[in-house]
Structures are given as structure tokens and as C-alpha cells.
């Protein structure tokens, strides 16, 4: 890698990282490095200052307590993918993690880095939408909390301000009777999602859907919540017919679908329906067991 010249800082606390970020113009945060470094390597990005948060303590843990799953922004995909408790409590999280890149990428790349980069083909945003995640953002005047639906603004753009750092991701702990899953088609070169659908279903005692969460990535400039799918399922038994009818609405309302030589917009929208159906079927299966 032959990047341009930059200054390098490696703070040990979040507070210090935030203050460094606010002291310097043209500074970039380096977490796992899997988005920033390729850009710097091609000199598409040439920040004057790189603030490496790899040594910041307290932002790389998974905690499940008080009805919440809290994941530090610096937690690697591998850590999430191999967490046995998450596999039981919220299987869509490890399932998504294990669909990302390859082993080396999963060992270095982080949840926070992925959502902040907001690549339209990234895997995590689908699960964040489906699970109604919220993001704790640290800035010079303290922290604020943003819901996933407000967090993603546009392709590669979030609500995070220039002087802010994502610190924690908070997800409501799924109630008993819940199941979740992720279904994805890989872009063959990069391993990113051509389309990915994350789904969570909660069943009531009679086996009907009491709550549904469906997030779709890869199709639109930002990941979105497939509300039409969710609405179609609530109150119904998640059988094959109900799932198929609901999944068919997975790309409803998408205006400018993403398009490149790997896949047209039309195909991505179609895949959203197929993958929604698959993710919902697995989620229902898990909710029942």
C-alpha cells in the first residue's frame, strides 16, 4: 500500500478520540480498516490525519442485559459470528456476520465501521433495520442516540457529524417466541450483498405473528425497512402462503434501485422478494422451535 502522507494517532479512550477528531481538519477514523484502507491505497481517500481507534477500550464488547443486546462499535464480525449466546438469542446477528467477506475480513472488520461507512451493499444495515437497532454516537458535547431508520441518510452517508464517533449499537432483546435469519446473494467478486434480507418474527401463544421486522440491503441507495412485508404478516400464521404473499412486497416503493454490471435494479428488486421469503421461512422455523 502506497498511500499519501498522513499523521497517525492511536488514542486509548473514546473521549480522547473524539477530541482528536475535533482538533484536526480532514481527519478520518480507522477501525478495522476494511473500507478506509482500500480507498487510501488507491488514493481515492487521502486524509491528512488518521485516528486509529483500535486501542480504545470499552467499545468492543457484546453485552446482553436489561432487555438489550449492546454491541460495541469496534466488535469484529468474527466476534459476533462466533458468539454462542447470540446464536441462541438473536441468530440473525451471527448469521449476518458469517456471510461477510472471508475469514481475514471477518477477523479485522467491525460492525461499527460497516454501518458508519454505509455502503449500499453492506450486510449489517439489513439486520440493523430488521432488529430496530439504535446507535449511540459520541461527540464533543456528549452522546446521543439515533434509531437505525434515522441513521442512514443516503449512499455512503449517515447522520454522524464530522466530529462524532459511533460507540455502541443497541438492539432490543428479542422476546420469547422470536426467530430471526439472514438470506443473501453474494456479489461474486467482492462478497458484498447484491441483495440481502434480514428478518425477525415473534410469535404469540397461538402461533401467529405478533411482531415482524424485515430489513433489506443492496437494493436501494440505503438499507430500508420493508414495512409492507411486516404489516402483511402481523396477526397471521407464518405459513408458506402468508410468507409468500408478504415477501412479494419486499421491494414495494423502491424508486431508484441500485444497478451495475453485476445486477440490474429490476433483478435486485426481484431478489428482495425471493430472499425475504427465504429469510422469513427460516425465522418462522426458528421462532417455532
Amino acid at each position, binding site marked *: 500500500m*502506497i*498511500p*499519501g*502522507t498522513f499523521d497517525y494517532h492511536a488514542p486509548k479512550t473514546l473521549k480522547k478520540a473524539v477530541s482528536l477528531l475535533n482538533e484536526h481538519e480532514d481527519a478520518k477514523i480507522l477501525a478495522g480498516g476494511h473500507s478506509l484502507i*482500500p480507498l487510501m491505497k*488507491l*488514493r481515492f481517500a487521502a486524509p491528512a490525519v488518521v485516528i486509529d481507534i483500535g486501542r480504545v477500550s470499552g467499545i468492543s464488547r457484546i453485552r446482553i442485559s436489561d432487555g438489550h443486546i449492546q454491541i460495541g462499535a469496534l466488535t469484529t464480525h468474527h466476534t459476533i459470528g462466533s458468539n454462542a449466546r447470540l446464536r441462541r438469542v438473536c441468530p440473525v446477528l451471527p448469521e449476518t456476520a458469517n456471510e461477510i467477506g*472471508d475469514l481475514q475480513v471477518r477477523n479485522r472488520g467491525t460492525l461499527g465501521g460497516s454501518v458508519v461507512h454505509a455502503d449500499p451493499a453492506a450486510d449489517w444495515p439489513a439486520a440493523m433495520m430488521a432488529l430496530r437497532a439504535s446507535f449511540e454516537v459520541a461527540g464533543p458535547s456528549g452522546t446521543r442516540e439515533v434509531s437505525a431508520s434515522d441513521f442512514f441518510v443516503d449512499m455512503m452517508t449517515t447522520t454522524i457529524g464530522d466530529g462524532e464517533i459511533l460507540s455502541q449499537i443497541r438492539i432490543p432483546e428479542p422476546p420469547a417466541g422470536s426467530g430471526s435469519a439472514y438470506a443473501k*446473494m453474494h456479489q*461474486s*467478486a*467482492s462478497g*458484498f450483498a447484491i441483495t440481502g434480507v434480514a428478518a425477525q418474527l415473534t410469535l404469540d401463544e397461538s402461533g401467529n405473528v405478533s411482531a415482524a421486522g424485515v430489513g433489506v440491503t443492496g437494493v436501494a441507495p440505503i438499507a430500508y425497512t420493508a414495512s409492507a412485508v411486516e404489516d402483511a404478516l402481523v396477526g397471521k400464521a407464518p405459513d408458506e402462503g402468508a410468507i409468500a404473499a408478504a415477501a412479494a412486497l419486499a421491494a414495494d416503493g423502491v424508486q431508484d434501485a441500485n444497478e451495475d*454490471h*453485476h*445486477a*440490474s435494479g429490476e*433483478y435486485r428488486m*426481484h*431478489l428482495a422478494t*425471493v430472499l425475504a421469503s427465504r429469510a422469513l421461512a427460516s425465522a418462522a422455523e426458528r421462532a417455532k422451535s
Partner: protein
Amino acid sequence: MPVAKSVGARIKRREDPRLIQGLATYVDDLQLPGMCYVAFVRSPHAHAKIQSIDTSAASALDGVVSVVTGADVNPDVGGVPCAATDFPNVQVPEHPVLAEDKVRFVGEPLAAVVAVDRYVAQDAVDLVEVDYDPLEAVSDAEAALEPGSVKLYDHFDSNQAFTWDLEGGDVDAGLKEADRVISQRFIHQRLAPNPIEPRGVAADFNAGDEQLTLWSSTQIPHILRTQVALMIGLNENRVRVIAPEVGGGFGCKLNVYAEEAVLGHLAKKLERPVKWMESRRENFLHTIHGRDQLGDVEIGMKNDGTITTLKYNVVADVGSYFQLLTPAIPTLTGLMLCGCYQIRNVSMHLRAAFTNKMSTDAYRGAGRPEATYIVERIVDCVADELGLDPLEVRRKNFIVKDSFPYETGTGLSYDSGDYTIALDKALKNADYEGLRKKQAELRDEGRYLGIGLSTYAEICGMGPSAAMPAGGWESGTVRVDPTGKVTVLTGIKPHGQGQETTFAQLIADGLGVDVDDVKIVHGDTDSVQYGTGTFGSRGTAVGGTAMIMAMEKVKKKVKKFAAHMLEANIDDIELEDDRYVVKGNPERGVSLADVSGHAHRGIDMPEDTEPGLAESHFFEPSNFTYPFGTHIAVVEVDKDTGEVDIQRYVAVDDVGNIINPMIVEGQIHGGIVQGLGQALYEEVIYDESGQVLTGTFMDYTMPKAHFFPRFELDNTVTPTPVNPMGVKGVGEAGTIGSTPAIVNAVIDALKPFGVRHIDMPLRPEKLWRLMNGGESS
């Protein structure tokens, strides 16, 4: 061949321990005192006039040693050479090492920066200001040949680079004779070879010795030495080329590139060692590409499946300039168009087009994958047209076993073959009948299984010099040290093929020494006699033969010494294990070390015998070799997504005699994956303005191990009479055989949807559309 101990054994590659442990030396590992680093300024435009280049800011940057442009360098450095320009209607472009007036593709170098480290060099590149006047570009070969197209070369009549015609038999008579005629367009998309190690060059000039040493990641160190010496104006004996460890080539390092001459020139001019390592991005832009033909085939057939004629009318997109062998590559397609079939009436009409893209040249298979793809697809199209099993059409048209040597309609003489045994074995290994039954059952369930066959024959062991653009012979020297250890100097340049192991196996058996006592030296023009290099599946078939012939000369002398030492008749000396013994009296014997020690002492010599024990041989092959085989792919295509699941891959290859089965399997494995890469994933895409859309691994799909099932490999053995070992070559077989097998399988799966052909790469979306009411291509 002597009775073999080593030959035929699965000996682990002797190259691997150093590779695995990081002990190998690549160009990038080289560090010399005072070494400078070179970075190139490359065109971001596909086609533009260069109005001016301002290097002042770059030159002023701290750490920059020199900045040179075409105006500085081109007067002293000749253009990039092409060894194959003898073609009808050829227009040969000037190919300066640094573009001066005009750039013609994205990535073309036009200036070079020399600096104290790579970072400064790259910073300085960003400071070179080039004033371009962008011109309209043409990136489509057919459009480039239209009258009125934008021209790459103002002084040429058109963008037509050359033409070439081949006709065997009488194609029009074949059409008349046919019961039916069909035509089909085939596209062989452009591919990037992508070796794991990109190119790299280092150069060091010693003014005292007037000696330039050039390290390059190349497959052809000797040819490179000759060409670089001519380009930069040094006597050839003042240039030493070293190809150190080379991390793969696949043909893209069978070339002479601008950077090699520029680095040599800069080292000489600056009298400082210089190094340049290609980035992956540069590799995508300015290392040769492969394939890129599109053409229409007309095929005549009898109702029983007999193919009466094959006409191929093709446009080859050669890119902007000629590299070393650019024009020769599509001609190999013509020569191999008949595959393993008795097609007496065959023709190819080729037009080559200049476009604003990187040059095409040899990429694993080099012209033959195109031929095999066409003929293997055609056989399936014929079966489809006539409602026959593709298997039966193949059997109907096979060249039969007892007709070898077989003269093809394209003028080649196939050495040996038995296409039926390889086919039968593959059918049995795959359980073809069972697969067809399963296919029928699954179709009833709305699932789409496809079974694809490829019964390929290919041309290897390149080759007779008269048929090669730059010589086809190879050299070998076998030296026995006074202590009896053996050193081989081979003119080939292995870069993954494993000849440090297989050649040692041959020598071990041939001379009666341990494999570990044999050292294979290659890739240094100061140590090794002139040679040709590694390409065209020739390393063992041609280079190995040269070594074996030299070894036989050594062995003859060893026997002469042994007879003298044992006071026996030379005709009675035979090699038994590791001793040369007197026939019928095995306790009377000497080892190779005994003989070599004696021969190097130089006293008590047999009559008319020189001291020492070293011999060389330059081998000129009498013919090419023609490996063959049958590949069977089994796929299931998901109707909802169009995704292809490769369920099984069965291959039976016949590459003649096998020296090391493990190495042969490794070559086949890699070859299959590369062929499947073309079928399913890979494509270099230039947009209409000549910009590359697939310039990183985020967009260009390299096949990965987890895409594939475990391959089920087997073989038959039909030795070639062309060389004494009976080996045919295996470097390209897998790539050539596998592409049509998988495409045929996918098309077979989609047969219920009325699909006869789909162009590569078979992306899921394409298949999904065809399975859901979309257009067939």
C-alpha cells in the same frame, strides 16, 4: 526410458518448502544499496492527444531523483517489440515505451518518476501535470471496423490490424452436402490473467563492467534479454536477465513490456539500481488481457449428426498496440477449430481490430480455449437441432483411434489419441445414465439439473520452430559434479509448474542418483545456456526432452568410464538401482560419484575421451503434442435466482505419460478453475468511453476455492511419439476443457426453457431472465 523408481511417484514438490516458509526470493524481495523506486504516470483517458507534460513540480519534490517523459526516453529506447507481424493486410503500429503524442488506452504509461522510496515516487506522479486533449474512443471491435469509426492511428487506412484466412476442404461443398445448416454467434469475453504476483522489474548497471542486470518476473528470460538489449542499445552479452521466483504467469509474463526497457535504461542512465513493482490496479490496466473474440459460426450437418462443414467468421479485438505475440493468438483458434472431430471442411475468416483497450496476447490456453469452446458448443447445438444426445453426436464425429497420426482439416497432424476411452471412463465415473435419469426426475419437480460434456483435444508442447513466432526448440545441460551430484541447467522458466521436482525425478531414474541430489537451475541468462522459456504447455514436453537428451549423452560417457574402470565391455554396462554394473556380474559395479570423481581427476582416461562430465542438448521438436480428455459438469440452476450450483465435476484427462501424478492433478485443478472462471464469473469490462469498470478485485471476480466442489479426476494414458518420454503437456488442458463443459451443463439445465445458447460469463441474472420468460441470446 529406464525402469522407473521416481518417475510416476507422488513426490511432494521440492519448491514448496521455500514458498510456504517465505524463503523464496521474488523481485520485490530484492534490495540493493542506493536503490531507487520507479512509478509511472499513466493515462486516465482511453484516447487523447498529449498537449504538454509539466514535470517541474514533481522534479522539485524532495527525494525525487529524476522524472522522464517519452521525449526524454524514446530517442534512446526502441519500441515494444512484436514477434508475429507477418500477416495479410497488417498495419504495425509504432509502440513507444512511453507515449509521446497520443495515448490510446487507460493505463498507458507516458512518464516515469524515479525517487528514493515508493511513497515519494507516487507523490511525485500525482504532481506531474499532463494537458490532455481527449478524443472520442472506440472500445467495441465491430464498431472500430465500421467505416467512419474513430481511428487509433491517423496514418492507417482503418482500425483493421490485420486479416487471416484458413480453409481446409471445401466449406461450400460441405454446406451443400448438409441436410441442415445452423448458425450461432459466440462471444469470448476479455479476461485478465491476474497472477498472484503482479509484474515487477529491478535493474542495476555496473559501469565498471559495462554490465546491466535486469530482474524481471518473466516466463522468458532469454528472449527478454535479447529484446531489452536491442531496445536500450547494449550488446546482448552485457545484459543479464534474472527471473527469480515468479508468482504465476498464465501467459501474461510471456511478453516484453515497456517497463522492462525503461527500468534498464534508467539504471544505465542514472547508474543507480532501480525497482518498480506493479500494483494490482496497474496489472488490470497494463498487463496483457486474454481472449476477446466474437464471431459467427455456420455449421452444416447430416440428419444422423455428421458435421459436414464449419465456417467461422470472427473479429478479434487486439486492443491498441501489438505486444510480443498479439497477432498470433487468434490463429491458434483457427488451427484447433476441428477439436477431436473429423470435420473435413473448415474455414476461418479473421479480421483483427484496434480498439482503445490494452493489448490482448497469450493467456492460459491462448487461442485454443476459443476453438474448443466453439466446437464443443457446436456439437451440443447440433444435438439440440437434431434432437440427439450430445454424447451420440460426439461419438459420430470423433477421429477414430487407428487413424493417428491424423491430418486435420486445418493442416495439423495429431500425434496420437483415443478419444473414446477417455469419454467412456468419464461417463462411467460420472454415472451418466444415472444423471440423465435424475435430471428427468428433478425436472418433474420443477428443478433444473444440467449435464455438460466437453470432449476436448488441444495443441501443446510448443513447438516446431517453423510454426512458432520466436523459435520452438529448447535447451538443457546436465552436469555431474566431481562428488556425483547433478546440476541441470534448463532453458525453460518454471513458475509454478513444478519442474524442479519432475525434472529431478527424471534425472534420478536416468542416472541412478537420489532425487535430492539433483538441482535444477533456471531463469538466469548468465548461468543457463540460451533457451526459449515456459509457455504453451512446453516445459516438460520440449524442455524436459532437451534435458533427457543431454542426460543420455552424459550417461553414454558414464558407461564408457564405468567400462574402463571395471575393465568390461561398454555394451555390458547397465544401471542397476544406483550402480553401474557389469551385466551378469552385479557385484562388479561403480556409482555415479565413483565415475564422476574419476572423470574429473583427468588421469587413466578411456581412449578418445575428454575429462569432465557435462553435456548439453538443443532439442527441436518434430511436431506439437495433442492432449485430450472428457470433462463432465453437473449443475443445478435455481429458477428463483439464476444461481448455478456446481454439484459435480468429473474429468478424465489424457496427457500422455505422467511423471508425477500429484503435480499433474495440481495443474488440472488450477486449469479447471481458470476455465470455470471464464464460464461463470470473469470479464474485463470497458465502457463505451474506454474506461475500465473492472479494475479491482471488488469488481472483477477471481474464482475462489469455495465456489467449487471437490473435482473428481482420473486419466487415461496415450503416450505421444513426439518425444522419448511420451509426455504431452498439462499446463493448459484443464482451462481448455472446462469452459465448455460448464456452459454446456448450464444450457442443458435450461433446455426446458427453449434456450440454445447463452454468452459467458453466465451471471445469475442472465439465467434468471431466461428461466422466467426473458430473451435467449
